């Protein structure tokens, strides 16, 4: 490796675009050549400064409000349509009628599992966890990672059902999908089997086309839902989570 080639490779290393072997070759040249070391340091420093400087440009608080307002305005025009008004009246009457014996129905886990695709906000598990308020890290999902599953969507629901459901959906390259649901304590699905995992009782079984598993953790109940994986496969994937979260 000579100085000319090294210069070309410095950016590629900092960009994470070189193979480990090339990386080692270039780095060993840089260690032994003060000219190239200086170029390396300069590139690294410039990049770091750029990150701080550009990263400090933030959207103003007003901007997000404006965006929500703009999109709501679009929806509002909808309210003037006569058909919509009639629909609202019928809906209000029906709610009034049914309210006494069927409180607004809570969405079923398998329903959420099927719509959570649209809720993707990021592929980054830590970012997802932060946004739905669950303390999850990469280790908790290590078995998922080994199975080539990656975060695919997340959702946090508390209204209008007055309960809290947080859900993260993961998918692998075969298109197999599994949702991890964090639920208020007291969650139950009847007629399931029981297995002990890490000293915790895990309930598991299948209903219709869906497979379920759930257990109680310290502050909430955690459930798994999938159509593609059977309960035992799901429990294997979730094992590092059981008794940890």
């Amino acid at each position, binding site marked *: 490796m000579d100085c000319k080639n090294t210069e070309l490779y410095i950016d590629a290393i900092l960009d994470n*675009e070189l193979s480990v072997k090339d990386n080692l070759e270039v780095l060993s040249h840089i260690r032994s050549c003060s000219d190239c070391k200086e170029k390396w340091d300069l590139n690294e420093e410039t*990049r770091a400064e750029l990150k701080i400087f550009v990263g400090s440009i933030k959207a103003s608080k007003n901007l997000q409000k404006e*965006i*929500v307002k703009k999109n709501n305005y679009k929806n509002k025009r909808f309210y003037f349509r006569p058909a919509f008004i009639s629909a609202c009246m019928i809906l209000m009457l029906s709610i009034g009628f049914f309210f006494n014996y069927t409180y607004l129905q809570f*969405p079923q886990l398998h329903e959420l599992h099927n719509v959570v*695709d*649209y809720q993707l906000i990021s592929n980054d598990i830590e970012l997802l966890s932060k946004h739905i308020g669950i303390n999850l890290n990469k280790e908790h999902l290590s078995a998922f990672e080994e199975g080539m599953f990656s975060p695919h969507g997340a959702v946090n629901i508390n209204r209008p059902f007055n309960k809290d459901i947080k859900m993260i959906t993961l998918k692998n390259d075969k298109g197999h999908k599994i949702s991890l649901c964090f639920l208020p304590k007291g969650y139950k699905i009847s007629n399931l089997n029981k297995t002990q995992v890490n000293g915790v009782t895990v309930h598991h079984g299948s209903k219709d086309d869906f497979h379920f598993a759930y257990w109680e953790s310290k502050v909430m109940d955690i459930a798994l839902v999938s159509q593609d994986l059977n309960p035992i496969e799901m429990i294997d994937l979730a094992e590092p989570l059981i008794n940890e979260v």
Partner: protein
Amino acid sequence: MFSWLKRKSFEKLIQVHLDSLMQLAYMKCENRELAEDLVQETCVKAYNSFLKKHEEIKSPKAWLFKILINTHIDFTRKKHLSIVELDTVDLEDQRDNSNVGDTAFFYKDLNEALKELRPEQRILIYLADVDEHSYKEISELLNIPIGTVMSRLYNARQNLRKLLAKKGYTKESLEVSR
């Protein structure tokens, strides 16, 4: 079904990526006010497309970036924005208590150097150096071959380094400014 859920999740999606959108828009538009307009217009377009979407969005950030880049093309046509200058960024925010003067001056010069680059070069530098996209991702986002990404990025960085060197910034002074 669950359209309220879709709207909420769009708001969440925007909340998560808004700063990145703003940074990309700033690199595109060269001034803060225009950047905010561009982000707003991008979000309106993104929302309409999001409502119609039934398939998954593989990489939401890249999806939003792509909409922003396309929106900017219409935006420039509409508003003839080609000769607007980069803002003076509020240096208060970046000031580090220990080295107030140096840091502020350095970022002012860095901003000026960025201003002297062509917008396409700024975008490449933003995507690769600040937002850390891979060459492949940049190539998909900007619709150019990977080889072109690499050569343009190389030129953009060389230009930026030359501009900074002209202003007297070497490795040592960069270290001092931090």
